């Protein structure tokens, strides 16, 4: 055996001599900013973005109101009120719920996107990939066309039905893709795609059949393009409950996602019960997506590009990728929502247009800036 060992060592020394790679600890992928530094910086940026978004708007609200009112209301500080009541109402009852909702929706979409991309091993996956968009759209259309009025936990007919539609579509896609107790990633993608198409066209069909087409089209169109529609704290609490619970649960499966990136069999060899964890992660991702749909309709692009942007800077390891994507998505949507309010006053732009306009160029810049060829 000494013979073998001797040979191995000899070959090793030969290899390192001829390979010519300098022995260095330098990382050779993207920028590789440290995780903790990155997370702290991003959280501070999120806070700054939220302060900015609550301060800026059609009505003038002094910065001190933005800073003190939330702290006063939370009971942390007791600064005497030196500002008009109207400023406080605009800030606390109108702008702040919307900004908080935007951060939750953005975070949920980016997180769901990262989960689906890892789970389906597909860089083109987004939160809507397993049929949720079609289900949500059909639900929204039904909500507009049915002349019923009800509200669930402070949400009207349209958000409630699109939430239900999104979740049922995802569950159906999963059922369709499950053959003999197993799901294949490709079948799941195809089932999701086919289901989404069928549901979207069912929505169009319903609209065509309806007489009040003109009336509903604008409302539905802005829902489909996406826009934060949250107006009060009750709604924020519901969305926060859904997003935080599902988000934390999804992050607990980060290591399973890493293993699943290497394929089902390899993940099994690494001790991950693939089928069970996949079902759980699909449910959590769909829950995050449906919660985002409730708060903002179908906002595109965030869930697709934010995880990629984060991967380019911080690498693909999921226990870092998931939290960083969530915070980055939150920052991005808070800013996009701010712009959608102030760009063409007094009208609002659908935020989906802005996420595409803002996200596209930023993403392309990152893509060009990365030192190596992009391989997600």
């Amino acid at each position, binding site marked *: *055996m000494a013979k*073998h*060992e001797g*040979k*191995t060592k000899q*070959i*090793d020394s030969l*290899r*390192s001599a001829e*390979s010519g*790679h*300098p*022995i*260095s*600890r*330098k*990382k*050779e*992928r*993207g920028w590789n900013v440290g995780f903790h530094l990155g997370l702290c910086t991003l959280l501070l940026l999120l806070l700054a973005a939220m302060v900015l978004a609550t301060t800026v708007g059609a009505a003038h609200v002094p910065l001190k109101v933005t800073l003190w009112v939330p702290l006063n209301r939370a009971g942390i500080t007791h600064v005497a009120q030196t500002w008009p009541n109207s400023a406080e109402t605009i800030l606390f009852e109108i702008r702040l719920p919307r900004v908080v909702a935007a951060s939750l929706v953005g975070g949920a979409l980016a997180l769901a996107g990262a989960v689906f991309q*890892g789970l389906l*091993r*597909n*860089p083109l996956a987004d939160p809507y990939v397993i049929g949720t968009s079609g289900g949500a759209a059909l639900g929204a259309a039904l909500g507009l066309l049915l002349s019923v009025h009800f509200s669930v936990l402070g949400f009207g007919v349209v958000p409630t039905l699109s939430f239900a539609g999104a979740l049922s579509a995802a569950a159906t896609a999963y059922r369709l893709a499950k053959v003999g107790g197993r799901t294949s990633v490709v079948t799941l993608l195809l089932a999701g795609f086919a289901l989404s198409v069928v549901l979207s066209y069912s929505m169009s069909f319903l609209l065509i059949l309806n007489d009040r087409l003109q009336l509903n089209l604008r409302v539905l169109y802005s829902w489909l393009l996406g826009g934060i529609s949250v107006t009060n704290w009750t709604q924020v609490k519901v969305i926060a409950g859904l997003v935080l619970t599902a988000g934390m649960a999804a992050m*607990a499966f980060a*290591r399973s996602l*890493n*293993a699943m*990136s*290497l*394929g089902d*069999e*390899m993940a*099994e*060899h*690494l*001790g*991950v*019960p693939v089928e069970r964890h996949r079902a759980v992660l699909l449910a959590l991702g769909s829950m995050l997506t449906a919660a985002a749909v409730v708060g903002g309709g179908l906002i595109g692009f965030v869930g697709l590009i934010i995880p990629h942007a984060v*991967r380019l800077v911080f*690498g*693909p*390891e999921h226990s870092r990728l998931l939290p960083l994507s969530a915070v980055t998505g939150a920052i991005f949507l808070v800013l996009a929502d701010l712009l959608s309010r102030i760009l063409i006053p007094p009208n609002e732009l659908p935020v989906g247009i802005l996420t595409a306009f803002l996200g596209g160029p930023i993403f392309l810049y990152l893509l060009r800036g990365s030192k*190596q060829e992009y*391989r*997600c």
Partner: protein
Amino acid sequence: MLSMSAIELENVSFAYNGRPVLAGLSLRVARGERMALLGPNGCGKSTLLKLISGILTPYAGCVLLNGRRPGTIPRKELARSIAMVPQEFVVPFSFTVREIIELGRTPHLRRWGNYSFADQRFIDEAVEATGVMEISHRVFNELSGGERRRVMIAMALAQQPEVLLLDEPTQQLDISRQGEILNLIVELNTSRGITVVAAIHDLNLAARYFDRVVILHGRSIAADGPPSDVLAADFLENVYGGPLEVREFRDGASPVVLPVARWAAPERKA
């Protein structure tokens, strides 16, 4: 009596969609053994490895790892004692070499826990044992075939397995890389006592680096023993279905098997 075999297969049968692949196969691999699994294309080498690792379950007979059925052991616990190096895996994202090797610790980590010092030590050790130190910060997908295979072995080592299964570890490597990888496997087996079962295509490499070879043929084991006993020309011709010749290697250590050339070899110039 407690079974002393690391791996024990008793009358195992398996079929894919009703097409039988293995029937009534029995095999024992002792702890610390180094075994090569040989056989023609499609004879069930990979299937056998998957049955041992518990990815597949036999429809008849039973598989025992240290006396326990893989199906009754939780996946995570199983992954702490048995590791698999597949032919290749495709990584859709740009994980670095170090990150890939870290994934080998997955079965040892708690859900929210980070890598402990002990984990880091096992990772460093795996990096060192496989000689991937200088490439540890490169992107896995951009490595050459030989480098990738080393990293895959390092990942398996980080699992601290008692049993290491390898599916065609030398496929698509040039002859020197083949030697490197097999020397590495031999070293892990001899210095750490890891039980090794490797499915290998190349009879000569198997003969040179393994002290036990098992030939799968006709849905079961056709021969089992040291290479010099098993690799006989008429037996192999029957298994592989073509004319072969076996020559003794000069030092007599391992036989060499070659296909018979249909034309006479060109005359050597004096």
